[in-house]
């Protein structure tokens, strides 16, 4: 961590100004080597300096350079920020100049990592910043800001406080067993308290899973028999928001054919089996296999053709996905309706679409919002954890609660159950970055009056 890193801090290609940021002990040196203007080594800290980035004599861009000396910077290291005005190509050129003059390209999130390692921000804040960097839509940006403000940290701290009061009560009963004026916490008292913790945890986990949807989008797969118009629907969806149609690698498994922004919610259209290349997915890979594929995704768009009968195969698949999030789209390219719609009486979420007139998009949006209760996802009210490790700690804690409940049924003494409670308290502490045994001792003596 003693080298100097450089990166483009703004989203590339968007906006008129892009910022290149250097951090590390040589940040000012690197910048001064390519800057024409005041001597950056001599300017005061936290000043903005006008000048040019030059390569030998050639002026590359007209810039404003902010010089911020440690320790009062984001990373607690020397930071230089170059505000470039010349668009993508000159920004890239300036970056290249920094790299040639001794800086190393920053890894994604490395500035934040340094801020964290240098003690500038805590773990939850760091994760919040990471999400902000990665956030692609407005909703996700709001969420990132929310986490940065420590909203989730606050909620978890509150839960920890509730837990430590229970733990302290149990501990005080152990350490001071003869204090008759201190209430003895018995197994039956634990039950309602446990229920509260369980509900709170469940809520955070549910919210967090919603949070993941906001941040990462809804993985959506389009499926249907040959010639029902899957590729035209896929294309229609992609075309309606061309700005972000890119062929990018998906986060985990499949190729994300494209992402569409549905009023702030990302829909990742996943081409599980290459719909665009081969029309007849079901035929090609068989019903079983396609069901397997459906398992992995959040949302299934099942396409039926308006001028065809519903086949046994269709019904077989539809029956199997009944308990998942699905939307049945009846593609209405042909005005002749031959479809025997009665067969769909047991199914919900049916909408009509017309790729020729580009109709049905609004209905699809409404359906998705309804399915994911997106209207009630209010990012200001929610407590969510978007980091996978933290989420798994929360789930682990929920599991511990179940263990305690089993213990309660089996008359396990409360001091043993408390060991699991402490584990939950530690798990939550790991999320917020605080696990001190001393906390408990302090609680003990401030909550109870003890003495000899």
């Amino acid at each position: 961590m003693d080298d100097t890193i450089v990166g483009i801090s703004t989203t590339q290609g968007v906006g008129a100004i892009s910022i290149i940021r250097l951090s590390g002990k040589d940040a000012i040196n690197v910048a001064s080597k390519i800057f024409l203007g005041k001597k950056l080594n001599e300017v005061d800290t936290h000043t903005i300096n006008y000048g040019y980035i030059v390569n030998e004599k050639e002026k590359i861009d007209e810039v404003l350079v902010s010089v911020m000396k440690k320790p009062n910077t984001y990373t607690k290291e020397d930071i230089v920020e170059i505000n470039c005005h010349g668009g993508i190509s000159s920004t890239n050129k300036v970056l290249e100049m920094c790299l040639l003059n001794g800086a190393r390209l920053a890894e994604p999130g490395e500035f934040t990592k340094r801020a964290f390692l240098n003690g500038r921000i805590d773990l939850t804040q760091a994760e919040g910043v990471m999400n902000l960097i990665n956030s692609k839509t407005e909703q996700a940006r709001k969420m990132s800001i929310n986490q940065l403000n420590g909203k989730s940290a606050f909620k978890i701290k509150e839960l920890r406080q509730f837990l430590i009061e229970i733990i302290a009560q149990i501990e005080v009963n152990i350490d001071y067993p003869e204090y008759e004026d201190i209430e003895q916490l018995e197994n039956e008292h634990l039950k309602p308290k446990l229920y509260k913790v369980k509900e709170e945890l469940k809520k955070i986990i549910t919210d967090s899973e919603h949070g993941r949807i906001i941040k990462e989008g809804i993985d959506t797969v389009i499926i249907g028999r040959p010639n029902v118009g899957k590729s035209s629907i896929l294309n229609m969806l992609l075309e309606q928001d061309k700005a972000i149609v890119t062929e990018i690698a998906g986060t985990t498994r499949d190729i994300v054919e494209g992402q569409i922004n549905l009023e702030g919610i990302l829909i990742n259209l996943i081409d599980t089996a290459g719909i665009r290349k081969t029309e007849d997915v079901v035929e090609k890979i068989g019903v079983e296999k396609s069901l397997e594929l459906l398992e992995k995704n959040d949302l299934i768009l099942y396409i039926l053709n308006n001028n065809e009968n519903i086949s046994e195969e269709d019904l077989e698949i539809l029956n199997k996905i009944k308990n998942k999030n699905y939307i049945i789209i009846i593609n209405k390219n042909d005005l002749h309706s031959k479809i025997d719609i009665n067969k769909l009486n047991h199914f919900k979420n049916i909408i009509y679409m017309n790729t020729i007139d580009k109709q049905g998009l609004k209905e699809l949006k409404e359906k998705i919002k309804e399915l994911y209760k997106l209207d009630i996802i209010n990012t200001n009210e929610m407590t969510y954890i978007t980091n996978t490790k933290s989420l798994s700690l929360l789930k682990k804690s929920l599991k511990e609660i179940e263990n305690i409940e089993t213990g309660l049924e089996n008359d396990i003494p409360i001091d043993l159950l408390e060991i699991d409670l402490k584990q939950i308290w530690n798990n939550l502490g790991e999320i917020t970055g605080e696990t001190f045994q001393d906390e408990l001792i302090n609680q003990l003596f401030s909550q109870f009056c003890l003495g000899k």
Partner: protein
Amino acid sequence: MSYEVIIVGGGHAGCEAAAAAAKMNKKTLLVTSNVNNIADMPCNPSIGGSAKGIVVREIDALGGLMGKVADESQIQMKMLNDKKGPAVKALRAQVDKKIYPIEMLKTLKEIPNLTILEDFVINLIVEKNKVMGVETLSGKTIKSNAVILTTGTYMDSDILVGSKRTKSGPHGEKTIPDLSNSLKKLGFDLIRLKTGTPPRVSKSTIDFTKTKEEPGSLDKKYNFSFGKEKDYNISDQMSCHLIYTNKETHNIINENISKSSMYGGIADIEGVGPRYCPSIEDKITRFADKEKHQLFLEPESRYYDEIYIQGLSTSFPHDIQEKIVQTLPGLESAKILKYAYAIEYDALKPTQLKQNLETKNIKNLFTAGQINGTSGYEEAACQGLMAGINAVLTIEKKSPFVLKRNEAYTGVLIDDLITKGVQDPYRLLTSRAEFRLILRHDNADIRLRKYANKYGLINEKEYKAFLKKEAEIKELEKKLKENKLKPCKEADEILLKVGSSKIKDGINYFDLLKRPEINIEFIKKLINIDYKEEVIEQVVINSKYEGYIKKAYREAEKMVRLENKKIPQNIDYGKVKNIASEARQKLEEIRPTSIGQAIRISGVNPSDVSILMVYLKKGDFYD
């Protein structure tokens, strides 16, 4: 005059240290200011209690004295937390304050190699950062290879009562500032701590009909010691009595608060008092909305008339103390025999110690007990024992004896002291131990007896008895696991009778015992179990709490892995880049021996530890 080990101070730490060193065949000298004051109990008349009782068992398992002497001098035995789980059960003895010191002195005198000298140590002889002996007030210079300081509250102590500050140890014993000065000159950082004790009243002036009797355990006999079991008459135990303070008590305290030494009576108090042992004025001030506070009347001896009022520790002047006592139910006309006082004394910042309780600055100098910032007889005694063993090991150039946090409360205590330091006098609590399910009252011998044998602190007979017990536990566990209850009509009938459910397949007795409604008596009817109670107890615990115990062992293993990641002792933290400055300072000060210890230092954050680990892994250190 010359000895191999000198112990300075004859309190609970000093006695254990002296006995251990002498038993390990070192020519040992115990210097005390007053032979009659050896193993004195200046505060409460009890030994053991929550967590502390487990420490006494540990001391006994390791071949120490406290358990046996407490068994000899007890006037009441009580198993605390009897209705809770096995991990938190702890034994407490009300001890006869007259008999305990007599028994201890008798025990010490029987140990070969041990000499007791009545004198004051005023100076340490140090050459090349190594202690070479001591100088005494009477003018003696005594050479030795190692010195253990167990000075208790006697280092430059002041007794505080009301507005009066008197240079004195407890019971008006003499105190001297010389040793403090000697330590300061050697570069040690001393802190001022404070503790207190309540008034003692005459038993014959108390009306016990207004109190609630709190007897000892009446169901069975208990002993601290693993070896010799002392017999006693259960019905002849002395009881404690419970009373409460009342509005009138609180009024007197509030009206006179400024007369308490701690609340303005004395202006220059530096000492920090223990949080777990606040004075009555502290309790009433800090918990103003509490209408009453609990007090225990504890007998001090069968041979004299004193009653100790647990919970009424104070530094009010004598007249106010009388007024307070007279508001208490049953004590309206009680006569105070000894007034309460607070005491301020010098202690060493324990972060200046190594894991073996040797000081980092001066070789072969050890400290144990209250001088290390702890409070309590048991806390002192276990440190004394460890210091005694380690002083000998150091002289013999052998590796130190360090107990890990998953091995003993004693290990938890010492690790806390040297890693976290103290702000106020340190008391052991079950909540300080992360692995209390492993550190039980009942298994202290299984945890520690092997060490006692290794260092020669128990005799062959004692060790053989332990090995037999260990073998029998394995045997019985095997027997229960290998024998099954098979599904049949009779089996179903007896199970349903005790409210248990039928079995479909055969179930072994070890697993059957796990059922909450099944106890060992039930199993005994199905299979012959002819073992001692202590053996059966272990097997029952292993069965009933198997899941929890296994989990605790898994957690402990995780900790041990971090303990095994050693930090080279010549590491230069200045070279470890990017550690927060507070963390660097703490690491420099404490110089943890392992990553595990580093994590426990407050002010060292997980990110600092990861940076440190990366640094050690990169091997920059060896450049």
